[in-house]
């Protein structure tokens, strides 16, 4: 993930030589990425009922067909794309489906896996659409202000819908609930990348200098700070601290990379600390989360039984090094949100530290490939966009994993691809599609057959 090998591609690439496209590698990895979840699916059935579940073949065929269609789209429209991105996405999505199916067995009245499968199909459909329709990621730069308008609209929409479990982040339409904030992430990343790519020199070099900080002019800084304040304000109103932190982190990273000014990071961290202190002290919902984090077993001492975080820690610890095996843990004791926010606890208990580390490393690899695609590009928008998209994944993984393992205060957020939640899985497929598109551009520019 350090990206040290990324720029070795530049000096060694000789324009006349045709680059290997590595589509065969991708196909081979996809086969593994489909077989592993199918194996997991069978393991759950064997552990719970002693027989291979009847839908195993159908499930494998369905996942395989989706992977194959996605692969064909990539092979035709993005032949130079990074061969690791798609298999990682398929594998994570497959593992997520297995874990949700496994938890469904404990809650026969509430089955989430079929819905999740529908959303995954929709996500792969959108993945194919993006890969096929977006011929060049640079066209997105033109829609920067449309993106930000759309993002704000999406973020504001849930205010008009009733709160669910203390957070106003859902829109309920028919039987489906949608989290518009998930889609807003991509749109905001597009806007930030586009705006910063256009104005990075102004942000970096103009304006007054105060002590060691170079302050930009209000004309440049105004719009971006306004939009940031607005999005964060909306999120605090909706009590969704996780997404708020994600946007803020994304903003700081992109600003730093675009301008190269460490001062921005200092200002950002200071703002974050102030915000966290204020919100943590004033907002009861957030305050209770911080109390839970500091004293996860306080409710046990108070005689009220273990809280969610305590149950989550129990689940992780029950997994130990090698895990109990799929279907043999008791992570359902977590209760509410076991399939969404706390899905990782099931992975930790049943797959152990070994399986959990493997999953975290898969995310690490996904992020690394995103960073690498950005490094290989020469134009700033693509660089910032791929960096932003990869950072979204990285920050989400850190915030949710750190939250459920007691490293940082818990904030409700979906683990990319793993957790139950349609909006999240669809958004992540779009993110992967954009990374595929960017990596295709990044690598094809070095190929003798591609336009310069």
């Amino acid at each position: 993930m350090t990206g040290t090998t990324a720029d070795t591609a530049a000096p060694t690439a000789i324009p006349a030589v045709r680059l290997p496209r590595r589509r065969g590698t991708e196909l081979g990895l996809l086969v593994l990425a489909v077989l592993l979840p199918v194996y997991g699916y069978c393991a759950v059935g064997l552990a719970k009922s002693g027989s291979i579940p009847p839908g195993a073949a159908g499930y494998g065929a369905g996942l395989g067909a989706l992977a194959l269609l996605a692969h064909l789209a990539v092979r035709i429209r993005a032949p130079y794309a990074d061969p690791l991105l798609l298999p990682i996405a398929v594998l994570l999505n497959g593992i997520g489906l297995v874990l949700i199916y496994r938890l469904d067995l404990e809650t026969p009245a509430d089955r989430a896996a079929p819905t999740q499968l529908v959303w995954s199909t929709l996500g792969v459909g959108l993945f194919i659409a993006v890969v096929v329709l977006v011929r060049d990621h640079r066209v997105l730069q033109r829609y920067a202000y449309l993106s930000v308008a759309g993002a704000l609209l999406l973020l504001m929409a849930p205010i008009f819908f009733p709160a669910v479990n203390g957070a106003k982040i859902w829109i309920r339409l028919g039987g489906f609930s949608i989290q518009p904030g998930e889609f807003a992430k991509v749109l905001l990343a597009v806007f930030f990348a586009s705006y910063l790519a256009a104005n990075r020199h102004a942000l970096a070099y103009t304006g007054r200098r105060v002590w060691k900080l170079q302050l930009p002019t209000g004309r440049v800084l105004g719009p971006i700070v306004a939009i940031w304040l607005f999005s964060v304000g909306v999120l605090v109103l909706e009590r969704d601290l996780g997404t708020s932190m994600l946007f803020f982190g994304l903003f700081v990273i992109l600003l730093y990379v675009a301008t190269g000014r460490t001062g921005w990071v200092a200002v950002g961290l200071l703002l974050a600390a102030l915000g966290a202190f204020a919100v943590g002290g004033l907002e009861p919902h957030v305050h209770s989360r911080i109390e839970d984090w500091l004293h996860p077993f306080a409710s046990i001492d108070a005689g009220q039984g273990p809280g969610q975080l305590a149950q989550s820690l129990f689940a992780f610890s029950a997994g130990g090094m090698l895990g109990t095996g799929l279907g043999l843990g008791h992570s359902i004791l977590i209760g509410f949100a076991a399939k969404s926010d706390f899905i990782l606890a099931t992975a930790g208990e049943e797959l152990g530290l070994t399986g959990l580390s493997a999953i975290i490393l898969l995310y690490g690899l996904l992020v690394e490939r995103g960073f690498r695609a950005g490094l290989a590009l020469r134009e700033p928008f693509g660089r910032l966009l791929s960096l932003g998209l990869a950072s979204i994944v990285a920050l989400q993984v850190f915030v949710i994993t750190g939250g459920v393992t007691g490293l940082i205060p818990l904030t409700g957020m979906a683990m990319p691809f793993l957790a139950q939640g349609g909006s999240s899985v669809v958004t992540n497929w779009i993110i992967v599609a954009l990374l595929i598109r960017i990596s295709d551009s990044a690598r094809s520019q070095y190929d003798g057959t591609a336009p310069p």
Partner: protein
Amino acid sequence: MTSCIRRAAIVCALLLVALLVNATRIQVFQAGSYEDNPANRRQAIARYAQARGDILVGGTPVTSSEDTGEQLRFERRYSDGPLYAPVTGYASQAYGTSLLENTEDEVLSGTDPLLGPIPGWNDLTRDRSPGGRVVTTINAAAQQAAYRGLGSRKGAVAAIEPATGRILALVSTPSYDPGRLSGNGDSVKEAWAQLNADPEKPLLNRAIHQTYPPGSTFKVVTAAAALEEGVVGDVDRPTDSPDPYTLPGSESRLSNEVDDCEDAPVRYAFEWSCNTVFAKLGVETGLDAMAGMAQRLGFNDGGLTIPLPVSASNFDTKMDDAQLALSSVGQFDTRATPLQMAMVAAAVANGGSVKSPRLVDRTTTDDGSTVRTAGVRTLRQAMSPSTAAQLRELMTGAVEEGTGSNAAIPGATVGGKTGTAQHGVGNTGTPYAWFISWAQADGAPEPAVAVAVVVEDAAANRAEISGGGSAAPIAKAVMETVLNLRATPRPDPRRDASAGGRPAHRH
């Protein structure tokens, strides 16, 4: 820009490392303490996920497990709960375990490493062996006889096979059905609260956890010490005993409830339970010899396990002569569990050798292969075989001639000693009726059973309470059952006026 991207990548890598380190902390280093947290239900779920092994009496399980289909799946059931409660105890999902369910829990719940194919195997596979079985030494018929004998009265019975220490009956009344405590629901909570609040203390195992003043049954110990020390040469020679006896160094006088105790020989004093003779005899024997004999027989031992931990019986080791005189007739601070007094009778019956009493014959896996077998273990030689033989003679006399006539069994030699222990402030409490005895079938090489019976509230009328009247018939029923000499049901011997001969005797 490139170097900035690299730095951002390094930050992401550090975040990832932080996640992995933290996951290792939780899943490896903290795992043990989280697993043992009482609020973590996983251990309970695993514990109740399989049927609990059974406790066997006479080859037949007296317990079973029922699959409730709940999160904690299997619940304990008892086929004859109140009868065997002083043996099995309870196995409750809400309130833990007691007695054999407690001490043999590892075998019953399948966690005992010896149940696995090789030691350590289950730790490796994270598996649990099927619950093993506990085969008790209890004789079902004797247990029933004792339980029926006590009936609705409060009391306890302990019966031992003298030569081996096998416990044949362990009964405590009033009893309770441990099955009421098995689950974890509201009815269990209510039952728990009710049983604990009950003034009759049904959860108390009186046979091993309640000490009583042993009263005149302790004269067996006093006689043993006196004979062993040579204080008494000939049991038929008259002793120099005043009646009443003034306690040394005090004005208090000890009297008898029977006649002819003045200067009575030890045999007469034993058969008719003369307090004066034995009080003086205890003082003559001396504190060291008395305490030594009591301790060799098991008094003052808080570490006895059968494997249930048995409460220590008490004989003070620091007393003045007046206190020693009272202690020698089982009063003052002297206290004994029914099991302890059964051990005294068993030692006499077994030539002075005290065998370690035990309730578990062996433990086996669920398919019956033996895990552990308990062997006969000699605790101590409490007295010489000749002293034991003299004592057997005295005890036999007490049944044939004296206060214990209600325990006589045709076709067997029975030795016994009655006791009626005063207690409470100013001895105002309802006295405890005691009887300890042993029985040897005619033609048998050795006594097959030793019994101790205590009845707490033998009768509403104090005057009717006596060891011979209330407790002896119960001991007799148990001994008959063990010797297999039980004839067709007969009229209640307590109502049989001709049995006693001198029904007024109380000691």
